[in-house]
């Protein structure tokens, strides 16, 4: 009987272990063991019985569709309305255009104040933007069926990479604060001249610019991140809807 247990284990490999799925797994194994025992009891050779029983297992994705599409989606339920908006190619194109415009704006603004850290931030923002565009639904060659599929997909790797880049941008931004704002406060306190290592700044003017530009950059980074999430949510959400449409057609 260990052979059947192993068979079921292999089938359920990579299958999310929830209370419900574990119960079903145990029930399936019990069914298969009963059938196997019946077959062997009626004179079927062991190997033949195992073959018949394992052929009757079916397709694990069938269970996945029922158990996880409706269960995992509610996490994204709140975003549904927005997500559908971004499903439309026209809206998506507009969004890309808008983001491109913003990126160029940040780029120009960043160089204008001649702070090398802001320039680095801008470059990362641009790279992040490129990845966001890459993740647009029309670039999904194999749309994920549910969260599990999504996590094991190439799109998830891209999303992860983009998120890491965002994190990096934020770290650079924090460093920026440490190098520019804190020394500025320090220099004011000590009544000395503020030096950033490279440039000697005209303090009040520069300080205001840095703050405004950084706030703008951070805002846009979060905006892009939010939109990326919406696109992903929309993609995941679209799948079960399609699946149930098909089902209705069949019925």
């Amino acid at each position, binding site marked *: 009987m260990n052979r059947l247990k192993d068979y079921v284990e292999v089938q359920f490999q990579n299958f999310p272990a929830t209370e419900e799925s574990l119960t079903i797994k145990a*029930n*399936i194994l*019990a069914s298969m063991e009963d*059938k196997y025992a019946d077959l062997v009891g009626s004179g079927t050779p062991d190997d033949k019985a195992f073959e018949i029983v394992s052929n*009757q297992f079916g397709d694990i994705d069938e269970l996945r569709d029922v158990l996880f599409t409706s269960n995992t989606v509610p996490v994204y339920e709140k975003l549904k309305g927005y997500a559908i908006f971004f499903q439309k190619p026209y809206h998506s194109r507009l969004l890309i255009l808008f983001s491109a415009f913003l990126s160029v704006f940040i780029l120009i603004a960043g160089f204008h104040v001649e702070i090398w850290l802001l320039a680095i931030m801008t470059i990362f923002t641009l790279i992040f933007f490129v990845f966001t565009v890459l993740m647009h639904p029309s670039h999904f060659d194999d749309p994920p069926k549910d969260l599990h599929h999504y996590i094991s997909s190439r799109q998830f790797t891209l999303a992860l990479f983009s998120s890491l880049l965002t994190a990096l941008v934020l770290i650079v931004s924090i460093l920026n604060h440490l190098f520019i704002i804190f020394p500025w406060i320090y220099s004011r306190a000590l009544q000395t001249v503020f030096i950033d290592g490279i440039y000697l700044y005209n303090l009040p003017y520069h300080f205001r610019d840095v703050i405004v530009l950084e706030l703008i950059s951070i805002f846009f980074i979060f905006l892009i991140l939010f939109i990326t999430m919406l696109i992903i949510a929309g993609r995941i959400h679209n799948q079960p809807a399609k699946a149930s449409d098909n089902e209705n057609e069949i019925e």
Partner: protein
Amino acid sequence: MISSDIIRGYNDTIILYMLKQGDSYGYEISKQIEKQTNGDYVMKETTLYSTFARLQKNGYISSYSGTETNGRKRTYYKMTAEGSQYYQEKCREWVLTKNVINRFIQEVDQ
């Protein structure tokens, strides 16, 4: 051999019919289906249990844990009132479907 695409919409009906006869568990139902169709339709395990899960989510069946004679714990399923109503609907739908499709089926040699 029956195509799984064709029968998919009626797995619910088959299982509800079985539960109409009384509470039962996975293997018993699967065995009965095979027996009553003379082996023409053998339901796959994943089909059986995904149908149970779907029916339960829609409130057409409920489940409870029970023990069979050999002492093994099993999940038993029970049809609800909504399930009974749904079964009637599916039966009416099938009669209609059958009448429609039959108009386009030529007699085949047995």
